[in-house]
């Protein structure tokens, strides 16, 4: 039986970690992730988990310790935010190329500067090429659920990749909301025991980890494998999401479609803004405007074909980016979605918005403006601005 509780997003994720009971956690506190580390350290101190908690002096060390522990054969988790993720940067690539199933929360916070502790997605977007699976969550319930699923996705023998769970700093991490926790025993059964196939501490079958490939040059080959594996992980994400649905009543896939079936115009968005946007979609529907929403969960792997199939019937589409890829043509989500539609016939007109940087509030009016802009594009057939800003003081 599930238990209905009142928890912050961070507390919910700390509970998920307690239920998973990983072998090793190496983490360093940073706003707004701090309370996960605090709560989990309390579980360790009180003997609620058997985890070896490694106190480290930086996030670079945290991820390095995670890589070492995971290579040694342990089930490993960590958590970070913003500058912390940035400091982990070089080791992120090591974790994914060594194919280590480390599971990490990154509580989305902007990258300074100016120094800012509030939400946007610039931190995890900076790590989008690091070879990690990246799953965005709308609310605390999804963050909790995704944490449990992430273990199974990461450790699946057809995947063996690290997974980053992403949710909005403060908006989700610090807000107390109502959510359901699974029973400890159900989580234990769902994640199962971790049985690594090849690991450092297997003294019967010794392996060397972290080899230099300079003599023979097969780096390129390993990158192709990583691309194929992360592409293959789409099936595993869906399979685990469905299996989790049977256990909890909440199924998950690569993305969530909201009133898209007969929609003329649509919005694609990541994270908590999807919730706010659903309200606007409902309001628009009340006024007979055919608006739909696609909430992307899996940014890595990027489900280009599936997104194309889901959105191809729209006449106009707005892609909302909560990060600015400075110097690029629009935000990262915009660029990839637009690229996915390049070969399509009668593709929708696609516009991009940069919004919510540095924690700038996203109001219902902001999303309404997007819907109205889309309606104008359908009416006139013309795009006034391909890339625009939402809520910036102009």
């Amino acid at each position, binding site marked *: 039986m599930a238990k209905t509780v009142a928890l912050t997003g961070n507390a919910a994720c700390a509970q998920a970690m307690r239920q998973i009971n990983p072998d090793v956690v190496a983490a360093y506190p940073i706003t707004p992730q701090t309370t996960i580390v605090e709560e989990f350290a309390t579980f360790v101190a009180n003997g609620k988990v058997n985890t070896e908690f490694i106190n480290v002096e930086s996030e670079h060390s945290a991820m390095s310790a995670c890589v070492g522990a995971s290579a040694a054969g342990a089930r490993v988790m960590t958590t970070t935010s913003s500058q912390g993720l940035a400091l982990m940067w070089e080791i992120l690539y090591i974790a994914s190329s060594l194919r280590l199933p480390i599971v990490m929360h990154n509580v989305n916070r902007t990258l300074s500067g100016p120094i800012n502790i509030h939400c946007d997605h610039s931190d995890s977007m900076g790590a989008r090429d690091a070879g990690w699976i990246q799953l965005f969550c709308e609310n605390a319930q999804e963050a909790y659920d995704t944490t449990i699923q992430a273990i199974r996705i990461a450790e699946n023998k057809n995947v063996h990749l690290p997974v980053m769970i992403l949710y909005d700093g403060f908006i989700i991490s610090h807000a*107390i*909301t109502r959510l359901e926790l699974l029973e400890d025993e159900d989580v234990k059964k769902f994640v199962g025991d971790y049985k690594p196939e090849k690991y450092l501490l297997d003294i019967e079958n010794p392996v060397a980890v972290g080899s230099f490939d300079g003599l023979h040059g097969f780096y390129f080959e390993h990158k192709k494998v990583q691309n194929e594996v992360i592409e293959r992980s789409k099936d595993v994400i869906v399979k685990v999401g469905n299996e989790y649905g049977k256990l909890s009543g909440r199924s998950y896939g690569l993305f969530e479609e909201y009133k898209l079936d007969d929609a003329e115009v649509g919005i694609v968005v990541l994270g908590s803004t999807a919730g*706010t946007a659903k309200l606007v979609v409902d309001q628009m529907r009340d006024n007979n405007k055919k608006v739909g929403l696609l909430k992307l969960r899996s940014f890595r792997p990027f489900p280009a074909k599936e997104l194309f199939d889901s959105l191809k019937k729209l006449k106009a589409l707005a892609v909302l980016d909560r990060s600015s890829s400075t110097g690029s043509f629009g935000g990262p989500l915009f660029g990839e979605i637009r690229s996915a539609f390049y070969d399509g016939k009668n593709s929708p007109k696609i516009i991009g918005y940069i919004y919510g940087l540095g924690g700038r509030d996203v*109001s219902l009016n902001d999303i309404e403006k997007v819907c109205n802009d889309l309606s104008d594009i359908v009416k006139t057939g013309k795009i006034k601005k391909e890339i625009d800003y939402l809520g910036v003081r102009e």
Partner: protein
Amino acid sequence: MGKMVEIRWHGRGGQGAVTAAKLLAEAALGQNKYFQAFPEYGPERMGAPIQAFTRISPEPIEIHSNVTNPEIAIVLDPTLVGSIDVTEGLPNDGIVLVNSSEPPQEIKKKLNNQKVKVYSVNATQIALETIGKPIPNTTMLGALIKVTNLMKIDDAVEHVRSSFGKKFNQSVIDGNVKAVERAYDEVSG
């Protein structure tokens, strides 16, 4: 109440505005309602004016925007009235509930929007007499329930008992319960 209620809490860092907002949200859980409780995010400084927010709804809450037009503003520190605009964004039929020894008519004179309904209760005094500390947060919960009918006072008392029961001894629990009940009875508007 059929629709979502939005509440803004005004206090000073250290007065327990965030705790009060959370306590109310958790009490709503006992009512099988949905809720969000979140502070105004920033560096929390002892003594500085701070805000916290609570949303309560019979249905799941999907909005993740800031609360800009709350129906109710609760002021934990009387000295904030007049120094910040506690009526900002409130509708004309909104409610301002102030921890103060002053009567509502006197408080209203200092507000920007004087059309709102004003209630006051001397929560600091009640807290001193019941809990023994000048911490007005749980006390204000009793007054809030009286002026809004968000839930039954008995349910709120029960929640205070169960949530304090985990951390505090019986005299602290009894003091807090008494504070909630007295504020419920003594709030005036």
